[in-house]
């Protein structure tokens, strides 16, 4: 007996069940992405070296020492921002919250980079 016999032996219900489960399998790939969206994690780098990765789902405060001084970073409600920076222009603070994959906060004088990991919507941003 071979594969054909198994197919023959199946009832209509079995076939429907297989089809249904296959559809669920395919859909689950999509739903996993929705339930665990990409970009749910932020990475912090100082002078090109990884300082750590943080889940955006957990609210917290992070203090980091850049090349200029201490910066304070806040994670709240799935978003991240710089709330205190030792630099003069505070450009990273003015940028506000970021939350989407590929977005970043950069403090040039302090050589600190905060970015959301995951597959970004854009390959690069011109500014």
């Amino acid at each position: 007996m071979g594969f054909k016999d198994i197919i023959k032996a199946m009832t209509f219900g079995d076939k429907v069940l297989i089809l249904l489960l296959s559809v669920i399998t395919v859909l689950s790939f999509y739903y996993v992405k929705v339930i665990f969206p990409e970009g749910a994690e932020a990475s912090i780098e100082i002078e090109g070296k990884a300082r750590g990765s943080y889940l955006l789902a957990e609210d917290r405060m992070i203090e980091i020492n850049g090349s200029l001084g201490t910066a304070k970073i806040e994670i709240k409600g799935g978003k991240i921002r710089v709330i205190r920076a030792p630099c003069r222009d505070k450009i990273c603070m003015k940028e506000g919250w970021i939350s989407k994959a590929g977005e970043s906060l950069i403090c040039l004088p302090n050589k600190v980079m905060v970015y959301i990991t995951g597959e970004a919507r854009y390959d690069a941003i011109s500014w």
Partner: protein
Amino acid sequence: MHKDFSAKIMSNVKAQSSNYFDIWILKFGFNKIRLGLFIIPVLILLILSCAKEPPIFKKSKFLMDTVVTITAVGTKDEVEKVIDATFSEIERLENLMSGFKEGSDVDRINKSAGIGPVKVNRDVINVIAKAKEISEITGGAFDITIGPLSKLWGFGVKKEYIPQEDDIKKLLPLIDYRQISVDESKSEVFLNKNGMMIDLGGIAKGYAADRGVEILKNMGIKAGIVAVSGDIRTFGKRPDGKAWHIGIKHPRESEKVLTAIDLEDSSISTSGDYERFFIKDRRRYNHILNPKSGYPATGCQSVTIISKEGILVDALATGVFVLGTEKGMEFIESNKSIEGIIVDSKGEVKVSSGLRGKVGL
């Protein structure tokens, strides 16, 4: 239903029990077959999703007073060394072209202004020669001899400083690209007047992007992006066969993207009044200075230029910004190889004819 299914298979098993498959069925039971039927499509999907296109590796570094991000198609193991070599090349260019670094080629040229010609690296000759060309075609809207004015205003150095009008006027005669003498055969540069200063801030990043791409290609990378802050050069295609998808920053809403565009083997650069600015007495003072007036150019909020070469788009984004919305768009339209997007001073978006339908607005 289940009973029925099992019974049918059972009868077949009895009939052909010599078959290996049948023995397997007897050993492990019928439910396994059914399970197998469900597992097969799952496995196929898993294999499909794992054996997808080669990955993209991205790395950033603080260089040229900004962040340089290099993207290359390949795994980390394959491309990281090549990316690091590219960073080194960009660092070398920075050391030649930075006006703030003591002993750089640009520093030496500036210190010898009005005194004598200076022998410089070939890359510096290339950039200055190209800068003069772009000054020529933009009627002086882009001009690297802006140095003395940049220093006076001190964007990024001094805090909210508006110079005296007299001080600005005194410097205007020093702002003239025609007063740069370039001797390509001797690899020498001379600034004819005492007090002249060149500032390659509006063109060196684009050149670095070009050089970066050259190195990546020479070292076997098939596709990628070199982004020196917002001066971006792309080559090849994404692993999924699509063009690189590049966002353009919104000039007023920093968290937003104005629009996006797909690029293959071309460069894009944006100049905006939001990059470095301060507001005093309800007036916005941005870092892009008009070489003719000595004051910040106010005709646009942002200008994006798209063309083949990085060096060209970098300098033209500044040049067109200075020209303003109307003259700027006229310039873009008169040049077949250049496309652009201008956000005027009121926030209205103008798109060049070659880009219509290619950008979602």
